[in-house]
């Protein structure tokens, strides 16, 4: 696995141990390709999904929609000439003017759920095009996801690198403290995912991924006739729509944390490893 060795001199006092780094082959070409494809597909899915959501920016529970009691809704309050955007969650109400409920599009203030800079296409309402993009990329998302599953099971990527172990659960408190103090694994330890990473990837890959696909399919009336258990397991089409939305924002939350962690634990090293596959490991040279 060692490709090159690049000695890194850290002064020559003789007190400081000499450190050296070498490049470790961390991500296979399959993982890298599927990762970046997935990133593009997920971005299109999110942005076209928000365009679809804008057609009726309220969420409910159950099979039918209880229009007067949405669980979440993005609306506008005021008069036709003077309104502001509001986000309602249950009985709470927040002023989210300019971003959620009402925002600016080409210099004109409009009543719209999500703003133009997060929807595909950016003008809204454009439900027809939003659906076209969403349903076309849904095929790519599933194809990419299945390719990843096939690769990860066949290659042992899941078993050896991603499956959480009992030890991970035992070490969880310590891991949380290390994360909170922004202490990241160094040296040989950095070659493997830590417990929190394994658990997070497990939840994202095996829970959020399938859940967002299945709740998406549940919103299709023809799929519900083919698989009547779909609306049943999700407690109704409107519940499925709500879960679909919550999954989407869990992915957004995962993405934000993922990016923060990439930056804090070494932006360039991480980026290089996901592009060229090679990750620099720094070791103390014991031969001094």
């Amino acid at each position: 696995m060692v490709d090159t060795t690049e000695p890194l001199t850290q002064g020559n006092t003789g007190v400081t141990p000499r450190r050296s780094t070498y490049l470790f082959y961390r991500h296979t070409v399959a993982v890298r390709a599927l990762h970046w494809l997935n990133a593009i597909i997920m971005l299109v899915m999110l942005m076209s999904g928000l365009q679809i959501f804008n057609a009726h920016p309220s969420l409910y529970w159950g099979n039918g929609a209880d229009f007067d009691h949405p669980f979440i809704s993005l609306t506008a309050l005021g008069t036709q000439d003077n309104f502001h955007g509001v986000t309602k969650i249950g009985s709470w109400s927040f002023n989210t003017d300019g971003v959620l409920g009402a925002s600016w599009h080409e210099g004109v203030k409009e009543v719209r759920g999500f703003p133009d800079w997060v929807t595909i296409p950016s003008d809204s309402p454009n439900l027809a095009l939003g659906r076209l993009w969403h349903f076309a990329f849904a095929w790519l998302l599933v194809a990419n996801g299945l390719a990843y599953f096939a690769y990860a099971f066949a290659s042992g990527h899941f078993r050896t690198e991603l499956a959480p172990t009992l030890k991970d659960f035992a070490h969880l408190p310590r891991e949380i403290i290390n994360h909170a103090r922004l202490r990241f694994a160094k040296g040989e330890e950095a070659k493997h995912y830590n417990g929190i990473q394994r658990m997070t990837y497990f939840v994202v890959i095996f829970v959020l991924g399938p859940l967002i696909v299945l709740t998406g399919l549940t919103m299709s009336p023809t799929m519900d006739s083919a698989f009547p258990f779909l609306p049943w397991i999700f407690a109704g089409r409107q519940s499925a729509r709500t879960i679909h939305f919550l999954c989407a924002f869990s992915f957004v939350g995962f993405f934000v944390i993922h990016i923060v962690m990439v930056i804090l634990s070494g932006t360039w090293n991480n980026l290089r490893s996901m592009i060229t596959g090679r990750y620099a490991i720094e070791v103390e040279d014991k031969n001094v």
Partner: protein
Amino acid sequence: MSERSDRRSFLARTAALLGTVALAGCTDFAQQPWVIGILGEVENLTRRAQRLFAGGHALAPEYSKADIAPTFRANGTLNPNTNDYNVHVAGGFKDWAIDVGGLVDKPLKLSLAELRAMPARTQITRHDCVEGWSCIGEWTGTPLQLVLAMAKPKADARYVVFYCADPMGEATMDASGNVVQPPFYYESLDLLEATHPQTILAYELNGRNLPVEHGAPIRLRAERQLGYKMPKYVRRIELVSSFARIQGGKGGYWEDQGYQWYGGI
């Protein structure tokens, strides 16, 4: 200090400019006809895959009386409000009749009373709007397959087109001063969906005559499809081999505005 804030404002303006350019570029790209063309091809794949799973005639879930929404949401045209339609409303729709023609061996004219005299189907189903909301209601009507069986479709009939009494929008004036009437709502299903057991010409909602806002006196119910595929105020049914020559050529009013013809998703 000022140098730094200059630089900052320069960076902010550059970022805003790049953002605007990127946004405009994406918007243009997202709406390019060739892009829409490629994405539209995927609709065929989606339809074929869904048909594979849903078989010929898998039934949409049906619900119990307890699930019926207290108020069934009305959407789209709430009242055609044409002179012709208002005369029918005043007369209790006793003269309303549906013409069945096109590629059939036996063209028909069925009055509301004749439709009501035929075997009926009652179903409590979930109405799914393309916008995302749903409503559960109880519909009673004549299975469309019975009407089609009477009319005897010819071998080359592939689609059933529904013509409605509701004009979409106001009359406009063209450049030479002629009044241009707005198009009437229309929709189409293929024969598989049209002969599905839950596809009915509904005349009752929740045990009462169809209210005007829900398409009185007759609306289509196609329970494996989205709401826009179920036209209200149905006046005429035509069997065709292609809908390319009808109105915008896409098979329905909303399809002509860019929506997908396949409404099962």
